């Protein structure tokens, strides 16, 4: 019998398959195939029990006339505008303070970071109590300051989204702070020394050295924070349940409700595709601007 001989390519294929197999199998069944099914499902009407019915682009057409969908887009966008800019500015500010020559920086870093890894459910519940319109410490404090009619936070449709947004800024600021600290520490000291010799003042150094050198980090933080803000589900589910009315029904909440509460899996999939498209547009747009604006280290 001839010994089995494999070309180098085939031998590598076989070895690689051995290493890949466990993950690849799970990846195919629980990630890649679901993505393909998800795209396909958006062209069907399906209640999860009866056979799916192909309806072409009707799910997508429905989105254009669905006021609840339009509302969810508006709420999502507002939520992003309420959280992302302030979170980025605050986290960059704290990161620059924590890279100065002060003591206990690592203790401060841990304090700022911890809310990010604490149970979201627990944290959302505690904030819900803090926000309590009559009894909550926040409004009792505002009363004590002489404010007669403080905002009713999560129980009013005008302030519910703001209340969730404030909680989320508090929760996420430490995460982006850690990313900014890593970026700041990587900027070579020689640049600031050169700037000092040229007589640049503090603002000029920040504007012309720190910001350009930090732009890869900033770019990453902006993308991640926008994408995260588009996916905020748990705090809204716990604190407001999408309400009052539909005031805090962000897109991902709408998708959850449409699928697992109302069993309209086809329409929910179509909305998920819309979410995917939005995330993709932001990513591509950010990559484009990055190519133009980002100064690279080398």
């Amino acid at each position, binding site marked *: 019998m001839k010994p089995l001989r494999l070309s180098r390519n085939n031998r*590598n*294929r076989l*070895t*690689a398959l051995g290493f*890949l197999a*466990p*993950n690849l199998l*799970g990846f195919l069944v*629980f990630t*890649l*195939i*679901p*993505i393909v099914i*998800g795209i396909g499902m958006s062209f069907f009407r399906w209640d999860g029990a009866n056979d799916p019915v192909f309806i072409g682009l009707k799910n997508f057409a429905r989105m254009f006339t669905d006021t609840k969908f339009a509302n969810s887009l508006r709420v999502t966008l507002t939520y992003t505008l309420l959280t992302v800019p302030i979170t980025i500015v605050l986290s960059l500010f704290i990161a620059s303070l924590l*890279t*100065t*020559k002060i003591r206990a920086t690592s203790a*401060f870093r841990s*304090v700022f*970071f*911890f809310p990010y*890894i*604490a*149970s979201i*459910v*627990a*944290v959302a*519940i*505690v904030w819900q*109590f803090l926000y309590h319109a009559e*009894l909550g*410490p926040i409004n009792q404090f505002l009363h004590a300051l002489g404010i007669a009619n403080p905002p009713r936070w999560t129980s009013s449709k005008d302030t519910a989204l703001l209340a969730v947004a404030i909680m989320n800024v*508090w929760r996420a600021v430490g995460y982006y702070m*850690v*990313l900014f600290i*890593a*970026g700041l*520490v990587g*900027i*070579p000291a020689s640049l*600031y020394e050169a700037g*000092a010799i040229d007589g640049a003042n*503090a*603002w000029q*150094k920040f504007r012309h*050295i*720190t910001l350009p050198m930090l732009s890869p*980090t900033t770019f990453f933080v902006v993308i*991640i924070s926008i994408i995260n803000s588009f*996916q905020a*589900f*748990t705090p809204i589910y*716990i604190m407001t349940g999408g309400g009052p009315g539909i005031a805090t029904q962000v897109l991902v909440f709408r998708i959850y409700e449409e*699928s697992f509460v109302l069993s309209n899996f086809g329409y*929910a*999939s179509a*909305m*998920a595709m819309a*979410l*995917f498209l939005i995330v993709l547009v932001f990513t591509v747009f950010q990559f484009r601007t990055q190519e133009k604006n980002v100064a690279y280290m080398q």
Partner: protein
Amino acid sequence: MVGSAKSLARNILGPRSGTHLLLYLFLIGASLVMLFPFMWMLSSSFKPDKEIFEFPIQWIPQNLHPENYVRVWNTIHYGRLLFNTSFLTVMITALQILTCTLAGYAFAKIPFPENRIVFLCYLATLMVPFQVVMIPQFTIIRLLGLMNSHWAIILIQAFSPFGVFMMRQFFLNIPIELSEAARIDGLNELGIYARIILPLSKPAIASLAIFTSVFVWNDFLTPLIYLNTAAKWTIQLGLRSMFAEYTADYGGVMAGAVLAILPVLVVFLLLQRFFIEGIAMSGIKG
């Protein structure tokens, strides 16, 4: 390197020591804001309901009321929740480390012809929001007859493409000469993976383990979709159901919140460095 940022801030803030004092005051004030919800939660968890909303806040309760904890332990069967959550966390983290390091090794160290294209498939899926796969995963799990089973969550989360990506990036930085020397010494691929690459990758594996376990511990949406009966619930589901059902039991809910956060706090205090370096590492390379 660190000096750069330090000199930056010195330039922004000026060399006077007065600014240092201001800096400390600001940072301490901000820290108190960050800690306020946790301190209030802890203090309230030992109070009877009528004292919780007293103003000004009585930070140290006149009488400690640990019975809130006893009540939580019994009403939401905290022991069972703790067991379920720990089981999921350990299983998913262990499986992720195993499958992600194996796959990461193939992508980083084996030059098979389809390496690039298969890896691109993995990368592309990182951009897809969970909501896109949520419904098809649900139908597949139902098809497999795994509804209301912990295995639904384990299977969905054990093969993280992000974990593969993270491991590959780390393995790429390990010089190929090390593998080649080991090969000359007679080690096969599995031996190189197990005896050379894995021991050198402890920091990356620790980061992956920490993130996965914290994510699984705190995850709410996946258990919400798959686990219907209270016997299967995780801590997060139990806590949320207690919050929804026992709306007037403020002290009990606060005690439940403390119990949900405590394990993560303990691990965080022990491994702070890994948490923060791990985030920075995955962040910069991502």
